[in-house]
């Protein structure tokens, strides 16, 4: 199947093609899904190497699930977010959340250098501060805030990923944002929000 046709094909249709042995579908799904999976894992874990391991493991589970995937039963992106959430939670529990959010400083750097190097540095500082504040949140609040405000999912989608009701999602995101503001309020001037 041509590449432009692949780009217009849904995730579910691509997975069905993959299960029938179409190699182009494997490439299209990898290019489409891995960046999102990696970004979400990195934001939950705060460690680039661990996030890559989780992203690879989540995608491997998708490949293995492909032959038995039933169309219409679950959205692939939702399924992947759920798998990444579970894998990241396991890792966070194992390491006791020590030394988190070291590797994200590099990832948070804007890839395209702007005209003002000072402004870039300030932006990098803001991202580092946000990542640190996210790491300090309880797991469920962090998951809800990341899915809502960084991954752009709707509340019903988050509810499906987290296996809770929509009202619980709203409560988690609201408490998470309040906690982030409280955590960052002491650095308001440092982060350039003072004036």
């Amino acid at each position, binding site marked *: 199947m041509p590449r432009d046709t692949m780009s217009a094909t849904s995730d579910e249709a691509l997975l069905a093609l*993959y*299960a*029938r*042995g*179409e*190699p182009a579908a*494997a*490439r299209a*799904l*990898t*290019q489409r899904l*891995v*960046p999102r*999976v*990696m*970004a979400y894992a*990195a*934001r939950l874990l705060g460690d*680039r190497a661990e*996030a*890559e391991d989780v*992203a*690879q493991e989540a*995608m*491997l589970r998708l*490949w*293995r699930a*492909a*032959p038995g995937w039933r169309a219409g039963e679950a959205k692939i992106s939702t399924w992947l977010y759920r798998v990444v959430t579970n894998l990241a939670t396991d890792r966070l529990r194992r390491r006791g959340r020590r030394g988190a959010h070291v590797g*994200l400083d590099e*990832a*948070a*750097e*804007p*890839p395209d250098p702007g005209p003002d190097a000072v402004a870039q540095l300030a*932006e990098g500082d*803001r*991202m580092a501060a*946000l990542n640190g504040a996210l790491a300090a949140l309880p797991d469920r609040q962090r998951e809800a805030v990341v899915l809502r*405000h*960084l*991954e*752009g999912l709707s509340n019903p989608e988050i509810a499906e990923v987290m296996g809770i009701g929509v009202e619980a999602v709203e409560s988690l995101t609201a408490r998470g*944002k309040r906690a*982030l*503001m409280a955590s*960052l*309020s002491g*650095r*308001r001037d440092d*982060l350039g*929000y003072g004036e």
Partner: protein
Amino acid sequence: MNESDLDRLLGAARANPPAAGAGLMARVLEDALAAQPRAAAVPQAPVQAAVRPAPPVRRPGFWARLGAGLGASLGGSGVLTGLGGAALLGLAAGYADPTSLGWLTDGLPFSTSTQLELLPTAEIFLTEG
């Protein structure tokens, strides 16, 4: 920091997601191709293996086909048996000594013989006129 500041910060973070490196992309694709079902292995092979070939149909021999054809054209095997019996009786009557068939002809109403001369003046064909 107020909520507006936080929303701006979250918006900036959303616009710059942690990127997936080329190494990760290559590893995931390698996993995908290794785990991918083969196109040739799509369900048909086991189905074909499970179906036993049908035994060959044995074609009936010449005599069997001839008998069946005659029977069918003459009205069935009962008629064919009757015809066969009559043929055998005719053969037996032809080979047997006529005197021994008295038991068969004695009961007939025309058992007394009568001479009948169909051409009493047969000489007429020999006489030149």
